[in-house]
């Protein structure tokens, strides 16, 4: 109830702001809604969303897969950690924009370069988070698995991964929001389609209505993914946890 009230106030403030700033600077909710409907009817909205979401999915999967593998390695093997840490620090502090521009310069304005740029941007955060999870593994359970001669793959699946799961979830959550923001930048700078590309065109035409229209639709889609996909997965993975009353 409180949430709906808060959202209603937000929309109200938006409307008031549009009256004060003028339609050109800040279009009101009605104008934006009309723009959304128009884009949806013409099919442009669906195409842009599809392109952007595909890039998000690809870059996210790539970064999570490589990041988890490297994070586990660095968390468990001291040598890997010592060797990899300086590289990690450099990557962490390299601005996203630098990575994107270099990717386009070295890889050309290609899809591969775009996806790679986004993945590399997310990679260091994932590694750091998963590495912490690997460092926090319970040695008692490791010993139990060792004494019972549990095969390595089984031990990773049943002993290690469930312990890393909360860290994995944290990396996925923060990673998802990071990835789609960078995908938009990547599309703006060097791709011929997608939500970021549309934003770029709208910017050049000073079409604020379209900018806000695409932004709102995109946020709505990401929220839906969060509610329909991420939260149920998280609930299922936490079934075994004992809740303190």
């Amino acid at each position, binding site marked *: 109830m409180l949430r709906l009230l808060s959202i209603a106030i937000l929309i109200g403030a938006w409307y008031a702001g549009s009256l004060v700033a003028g339609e050109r600077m800040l279009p009101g909710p009605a104008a934006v809604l009309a723009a959304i409907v128009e884009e949806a009817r013409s099919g442009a909205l669906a195409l842009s969303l599809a392109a952007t979401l595909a890039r998000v999915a690809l870059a996210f999967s790539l970064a999570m897969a490589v990041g988890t593998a490297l994070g586990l390695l660095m968390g468990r093997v001291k040598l890997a950690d010592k060797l990899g840490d300086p590289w990690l620090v450099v990557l962490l502090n390299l601005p996203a924009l630098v990575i994107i521009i270099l990717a386009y310069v070295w890889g050309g304005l290609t899809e591969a370069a775009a996806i790679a740029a986004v993945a590399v941007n997310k990679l260091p955060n994932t590694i750091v988070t998963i590495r912490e999870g690997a460092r926090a593994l319970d040695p*008692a*359970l490791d*010993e*139990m698995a*060792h*004494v*019972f*001669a*549990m095969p390595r793959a*089984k031990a990773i699946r*049943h*002993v290690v991964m*469930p312990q890393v799961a909360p860290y994995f979830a944290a990396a996925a959550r923060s990673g998802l929001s990071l990835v789609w923001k960078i995908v938009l930048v990547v599309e703006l700078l060097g791709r011929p389609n997608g939500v970021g590309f549309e934003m770029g065109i709208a910017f050049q035409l000073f079409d604020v209505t379209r900018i806000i229209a695409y932004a709102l639709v995109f946020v709505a889609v990401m929220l839906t993914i969060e509610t329909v996909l991420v939260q149920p997965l998280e609930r299922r993975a936490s*079934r*075994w*946890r*004992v809740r303190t009353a």
Partner: protein
Amino acid sequence: MLRDIAFTLEPGEVAAFVGPSGCGKTTMLRIIAGLDRDYEGTVARQCDGAIGMVFQEPRLLPWRTVEENVRLIAPRASEGELAALFDTLELAPHRRHYPGQLSLGLARRTALARAFAVEASLLILDEPFVSLDDALAARLRGELIKLIDSRPVTTLLVTHDVEEAIGLADRLFLLSAGPARIIAELPIARRDAAATAGRVAAIKAEVARLTQTARGVSCGR
């Protein structure tokens, strides 16, 4: 921690190691189980044998049910074998529970079931009934005896409770205070002679006498 420990166990024999807290009993078990490599000497085990171990804490996987915990360690156990095991240990109603929902007694039983399901050639029990109330510990000891009798396996039990050792073992090894060495070896022959109160008292007295003597020796008197 340990000094000059040497012993040999017959197949199917239950050996209990009794000693004061902190003398190194757990360290000895860890060395035998292959968890501790910082020692001089040799440990010779039946080569192809699996080890079944019950640690002081249950060490169950909290994110798997009781049944899954046992099945993960013993994938080749048949449904019938597991059902019989769960029945003996009174775990049948808890098969689908998670360790977070179990009491300590139930968790210990699950750890016992896990160690037995493996059909090991060596069973290692590290103070498996410590911190349980007397009634429950006695019940679990009875269940353990049933399991050992139904499938004899070389067993190494560590405990600080002399009576528990007498109730379970074929042979009792006395360990001194740290650095631990074997003070004495007593044949108990649990299966041959009934554990009457008199017999238990006699063995306890013998244990006390041997411990005193050892203490006297080490103090240089």
